[in-house]
Structures are given as structure tokens and as C-alpha cells.
């Protein structure tokens, strides 16, 4: 069959489109000149500037972001694993509704989740801050962990459980020695996904944050919005990029290394 070149051309052009802004940002983080119109030579100074005492709030925001991400991924790993097991092994009419409820937070625009949580917290008179951010993050992360663990369960060999029971294992021993080790890569991959989603989130956090609880994406956003310290944004973004790549790469490795 004659292969037309048109789809391949689109493919290459789209790849260029996808990479240009990101590469531009990375290259400019090493640019001595303040504006990208000129190349002033290679420098590490924007990275060094991140350690200046006037940029202390950046590090505080980073710390807060990481704590919230760790707490919300831990909580959503528990919630997500429980609901994935329940959805996989038990079927009832209520479970059907539960299915819908797990998927809805993933499909609806994040903006709607943010505003509804804001209105809910205001109606209850809850003070907005790190705790409300944590609650919001657990809510959307739990759904994602459920979906990842469910995917792992779909390839689950049920006969292993039956074999364990036949050999005299109690239910608790079966869970601890058989089910849990087999599910572990799925749970960890789900947890890593939750971690990156939590670190990444801007929209929902923006609605439920309170005074003094800025996270890193909120901080970057306000710097971008007011076009302040553009070279610093390049440097932070490049670090952010490298760290996310490492985490995603690790989680992909985990998902692929299936013992089954």
C-alpha cells in the first residue's frame, strides 16, 4: 500500500508544537539575559537566586505543597484500595451508583469541584487553609487511585486466593500474604499518581485556600500573572519538570514490573 506522507508530517509538526514552549523555558533558565530576546551567555544565577533570603516564601510554599501531597496520597491510597476491592469483588445495585460516584470527580471540570467545595466550606463556617486543601485533594485523588488499583485487579488470578484458602490460610493471612503483595505495585503507582496530581493542582487549591496557605503552583501562578521574576519562573519550572519526570518514570516502571 502506498503510504501517504501527510499524517507523518502532521505528527512531526505536532511534536515540534508540543516541545517548543517547554524547551524554550528550560534553555532560558540558563540565559544570563533577563529577557528571552537575547542570549546573554550560560549562567546558573537564576538557580542560585532561588536560595536568596527574599525567596524564602518559595521554599515555605514548596514544603507545604509536599506535606499536603504526602498526606493526601497516603489517605487516598487507603480509600482508593478499599473501594477498588469492593467494586471488583462485590456487585449490587448500590455498587453501580458507587461506580458513577468514583468516576464523576475525574470527569467533571476541576473548577466545579473547587467552587462547590468552597461554597460548602463557607456554608459550614469552616476556616479555609491547609486542612481544606487537604480534604479537597483527598477527594479527587481517591478516585484516581481507585481506577489504577481496579486496573491491577482486572488481571488478578482469582485461583490464587482459592488455593491459599484450601491450604488453610485464614482470611487475614490471605489478605496480608497474598492479596496485598500482588496489589502493592498498583497501590504504589496509584499513590504516586495521587502525589503528582496533588503537587500539580492549581484550580481546586485556588478556591479552597486561605490566607497563609500558599502552595507552589499558587505561588508560580501569581508570579506569572504579574510577570514578576520571569527568569526565576524558568528556573523553578525546570526543577519541577525534572522532579516530575523522575516520579512518573518510577511509577511507570512499577506498573510495568508486574509479577503475574
Amino acid at each position, binding site marked *: 500500500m502506498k503510504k501517504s506522507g501527510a499524517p*507523518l508530517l*502532521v505528527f512531526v509538526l505536532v511534536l515540534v508544537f*508540543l516541545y517548543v514552549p517547554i524547551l524554550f523555558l528550560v534553555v532560558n533558565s540558563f540565559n544570563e539575559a533577563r529577557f528571552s530576546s537575547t542570549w546573554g551567555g550560560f549562567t546558573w544565577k537564576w538557580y542560585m537566586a532561588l536560595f536568596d533570603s527574599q525567596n524564602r516564601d518559595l521554599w515555605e510554599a514548596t514544603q507545604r505543597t509536599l506535606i499536603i501531597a504526602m498526606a493526601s496520597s497516603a489517605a487516598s491510597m487507603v480509600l482508593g484500595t478499599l473501594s477498588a476491592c469492593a467494586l471488583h469483588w462485590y456487585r449490587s445495585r448500590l455498587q453501580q451508583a458507587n461506580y458513577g460516584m468514583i468516576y464523576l470527580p475525574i470527569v467533571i471540570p476541576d473548577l466545579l469541584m473547587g*467552587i462547590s467545595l468552597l461554597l460548602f466550606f*463557607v456554608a459550614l463556617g469552616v476556616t479555609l487553609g491547609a486542612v481544606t486543601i487537604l480534604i479537597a485533594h483527598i477527594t479527587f485523588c*481517591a478516585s484516581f487511585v*481507585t481506577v489504577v488499583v481496579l486496573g491491577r485487579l482486572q488481571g488478578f488470578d482469582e485461583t490464587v486466593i482459592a488455593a491459599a484458602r484450601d491450604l488453610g490460610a485464614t482470611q487475614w493471612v490471605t489478605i496480608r500474604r497474598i492479596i496485598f503483595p500482588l496489589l502493592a505495585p498498583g497501590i504504589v503507582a496509584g499513590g504516586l499518581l495521587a502525589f*503528582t496530581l496533588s503537587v500539580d493542582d492549581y484550580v481546586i487549591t*485556588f*478556591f479552597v485556600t486561605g490566607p497563609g496557605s500558599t502552595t507552589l503552583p499558587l505561588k508560580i501562578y501569581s508570579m506569572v500573572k504579574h510577570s514578576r521574576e520571569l527568569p526565576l519562573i524558568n528556573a523553578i519550572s525546570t526543577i519541577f519538570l525534572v522532579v516530575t519526570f523522575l516520579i512518573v518514570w518510577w511509577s511507570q516502571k512499577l506498573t510495568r514490573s508486574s509479577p503475574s
Partner: protein
Amino acid sequence: MLLTAPTLFWLVVFFIVPTLAMVAISFRPTTPYGGFGEGWTLDAWKALANPNYPVILWRTVWLSLVTTVICLALALPIAFVLGRLQGKWRAIMLMLVVVPFWTNFVIRVAAWRILLHPEGWLRESLVALGLIDADTLLLYNQGAVLMVMVYTYLPFAILPLYAAAERFDYSLLEVARDLGAGGLTAVTRVFIPGVSRGLLTAMALVLIPALGSYVIPDLVGGPDDEMIGNKIAQRALGDRNLPQAATLSVALLVITLIPMMIVYLLNRKERNQPV
């Protein structure tokens, strides 16, 4: 049953109840202190007739639809190429397409803002080449909003279409060619119907988040490119008119339910059809 209880409880309290609260608050009166009062009123709903809102609602739907069409048009050839590749090359190319989207969303939009910046390299080179006037801005216009929306939502179109193309039998195209169909006819009459399921999913996955855009028009758009998300944020956090923010959000929720229902109904119809 006990297993689902914690997650079920969590989602009811922090997802279902807040959504219902949002609907309820849209019927509450405003208070000068930035909250909402007792009693019920249609004031916030009547205020939607304010000529501003229909224009913005329409713009939101229009921009989202155009974004969806462009994303699908770009994703189809990409899925076509990816689906035909084999083994190692397919994995490498798929990786190349997906990697940019591991980047933080705000950073990706920021990267565009920096690239299109008035004092940036791109604009200055275009001016130097005489391609644009010295006073043309690349930022703060609808074109910039549309381009960054396509950039952001493209993977949501590529991935489901790739999944469908992977299962597509490419020898069918050869059969079509042997039977006398031209290259383009073979693609439109055989390939596109073959990946229709993926096309439907891709449509919904791009359209739904696009309708809820807020960050993109805020960072790369001008005052005339605001979408409903911007108005919701302004009402909720700017002038603190919570009932108005709630009505706009309920309107957005209803609009996003339309593509969800279409996908659900079409998928069900397809499943009930005998193969």
C-alpha cells in the same frame, strides 16, 4: 459492603453534598458581608439575563467546540501513525507524545506566556522578519487562548484515539484501496468509522474540561476572551457574590452534562446492537 463504606462516606460528604449545596446557594440572597442570607430568591438566576453572561456563556461553548474540533483533527493523523507503528518504535513515539504532559499544567501555560511575551524572542524575531507589525501582540487575544487550549487538551484526544487505532485492522485499508477507493476515501470511509468509539471518547474528554477552562483565558487571554470559569472565580473570590457564582456554576454543570449524556447514550446504543 463494609469495604466501600469509608470511600462512599467520603465522596458523599465532600463531593455530592457540596454539589447539592451549590445548587441550594444559587437560590439564596446575597449579603453585604460576602456570604449568603436566609430565605429563597430567584435574584441570582434572573441576573444571568444580564447581557454580559449570555455572551460569555456562548463564547465558552464556542471556544470549547473549536478546541475540540482542532484537537480531533490533529489527533486522528497522530493516532493513525502511532497505530501503524510496531513494537519498540510505537512505544518510543507514544512516549514522545505523552512526555510534555507530565509537566505541571500551570508551568505549561506559563511557558506559552513567556514564549509569546511582548519582550520575548518569538515576537521580536517575527517583527524583525517583517511577518507582524511592531505593535502586534501575540498574547492577550482569542488566538492565543485557542492555541493554548489545543496544546493543553490534545493528549485527551490522542490517547483514546490511539487506543482505538491500536485495535484497528490496517489491512482493511488495503482492501479498500484494492476495491478502487482513493487514499482519502479509504481513510474517511474505513479508518474513521473503525475508530468511532475512540473518537466519541476523545470528543467528551476534550470538550468537558475545555468548558471549565479558567487558567488559560486568565493567563493568555485579554478582557474580551473571558470564559465562564473566569466569571465564576471573579464572583466567588473577587466581589464575593456567592449566589451568583453558584448560579454560573450550576449553568456550567448543566452544559457539561450534555456531552456526558451523549457519550453515555451512544455507548449504550452501540452495546445493545447485535454485532
